[in-house]
């Protein structure tokens, strides 16, 4: 095996190694931006495959299903939001469906949303956490009628 061949093999191998590393980096780079959900699809404008969803908000809620989220204790007792507008954002921010003036609540604190017939509350990385009963939640958690959800000093419940 001549000196030159070995040199070429070596350089070729190093080239493959670096092509691999650089492709890995370029995959990471393109991955960083993810895939944007088209604006139209997000705003519920008719998009293929979603047609069956369109008449849904008019659908009568089933009997026994919760209809609204109510603040039962805290700075703003009585504040409510209709579950038909779900997902509901809870927080101090102006875009929240339930806007609380509680100092212990984050701007975007938690979110209440449905999956099938079940309602979930999900913490959005708040400073002081969201509690269902005595437990601080770390993942979307099912809540039923009358289950107390605590954010900051405020307690919320699902009501009929």
């Amino acid at each position, binding site marked *: *095996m001549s000196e030159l*061949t*070995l*040199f070429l*093999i*070596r*350089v*070729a*191998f*190093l080239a*493959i*190694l*670096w*092509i*691999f*590393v650089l*492709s*890995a*980096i370029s*995959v*990471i780079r*393109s*991955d960083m931006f*993810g*895939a*944007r*959900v088209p*604006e139209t699809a*997000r705003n519920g404008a008719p998009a293929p*495959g*979603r047609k*069956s*969803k369109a008449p*849904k908000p008019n*659908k009568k809620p089933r009997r026994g299903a919760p209809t609204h989220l109510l603040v039962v204790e805290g700075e703003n007792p009585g504040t409510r939001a209709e*579950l*038909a507008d*779900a*997902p509901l954002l809870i927080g101090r921010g102006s875009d929240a469906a339930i806007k609380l003036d509680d100092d212990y609540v984050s701007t*975007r604190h938690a*979110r209440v*949303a*449905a*999956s*099938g*017939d079940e309602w*979930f509350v*999900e*913490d*959005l*990385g708040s400073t002081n*956490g969201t509690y269902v009963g005595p437990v*601080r939640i*770390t*993942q*979307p*958690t*099912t809540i039923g009628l009358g289950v107390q959800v605590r954010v900051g000093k405020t307690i919320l419940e699902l009501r009929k």
Partner: protein
Amino acid sequence: MTQTGTLMGFVHRRRRGAELFLLVLALAVGIGAYAAVGLGVEGVVPADLVGYGGWLTALIVAAHVTVRIVAPYADPVLLPLVAALNGLGLAVIRRLDLTYEANGLDQHTFARQQLIWMTLGVVLFIVTLALLRDHRVLQRFTYTAGLLGILLLILPFLPLVGREINGARIWINVAGFSFQPGEVAKVLLVIAFSGYLVLHRDALALAGRRVLFVDLPRGRDLGPILAMFGVSMMILVLQNDLGSSLLFFGLFLAMLYVATERPGWLVVGGLLFGAGALAAYTFVGNVQNRFNFWLDPLDYYEASPGSYQLVEALFGQSWGGLIGRGLGNGFPERVPFAYSDFIVSTIGEELGLTAVMAIILCYGLIVERALRIALISRDGFGKLLAVGLGAIVALQVFVVIGGVTGLIPLTGLTTPFLSYGGSSLVANWVIVALLLRVSDQARRPAPRLDPVDDAGADSESTQVVKLRS
């Protein structure tokens, strides 16, 4: 901390095609290195290239198909990086085997054994991914994992199975196979630490008294984890396993820091590390030697516990220069344990700085991916698990490559995926499986959160994540 996907209108793509493309390149690295070894050492393409390449390809394809089926949203870069490192490691070990065989040494089947261990590692990778569909299940086994980890660490002390090799009592021998239980224990302890810290991090961060610049947590919050950590450290010190004690210490510190968000822990940890290192330097002769070898390697070249190994490795790396001598044209066999602890010096000698930089970059990307998974993970346990697993890889690479290149005093640890060492390889494949599982959960689109028409559940609702309360 968390920002859910749908609110930002940001959805991760699956990227399985990208993974396949990278895997093909990774296989080209592994098989290409194997062919280059044959050409360099013997002057011909190795006769078993097709069989070897086929086996490697089969393993990687099996792993890829498993990911496609059971973790379709998992990170696309981790598996290729690991496959490339493992393939390159196999080729370099094979290269050393050929020389050992030519020199008439008894042990020259390291590459074959490594391939068997890799097969076992990939099988465990597949089993882990297939059985563990949700990493949060592991949180239930916090204390079980901790106890099991400590038991595994104690195992080498037992009279029948325990064995001492090269002055470190970290091996067990069962049915002719030797195994380092400590490698598995580190994965279990990461699970235990994250399970405990995710529940108690608020208490750890907020409750307690302030002493000097640090908020000391209450004893009852810190106690259990400190006990777990203390026992494992004590065992490792008794086993005379310096590298692993360093690894566990760093791991514990990193996880505590990430869980509590208190930089004070780093100060405390740094001071403790300084005190520990000073004590070890004063009382343990071995440590003193390591320091001396590091400061003046050439002075101890001919001494009996000397720096021969390190000096030969440094000579080899400097002789390798920028693009190396070429596989098969150096003398890496002059370095004792060139196939395990010192594999980076072999690569530095025969493929040069260019390849060593590529390898370090690969490790950097693995750690970056782990931290990225931690950032996007929706649950605290997943975050801590990913950070802990990433920290294991990062610390191990730093300690080994730092030691081999003379940056820090040398301590024995395996280079993840590259070095010869079955237990480490198998444990590392499980680590990758766990990382992919967490990333699959994290990158999956959030469950559809508008009320779903229960009568006409259409195709879109198949994306709902399994939600367990």
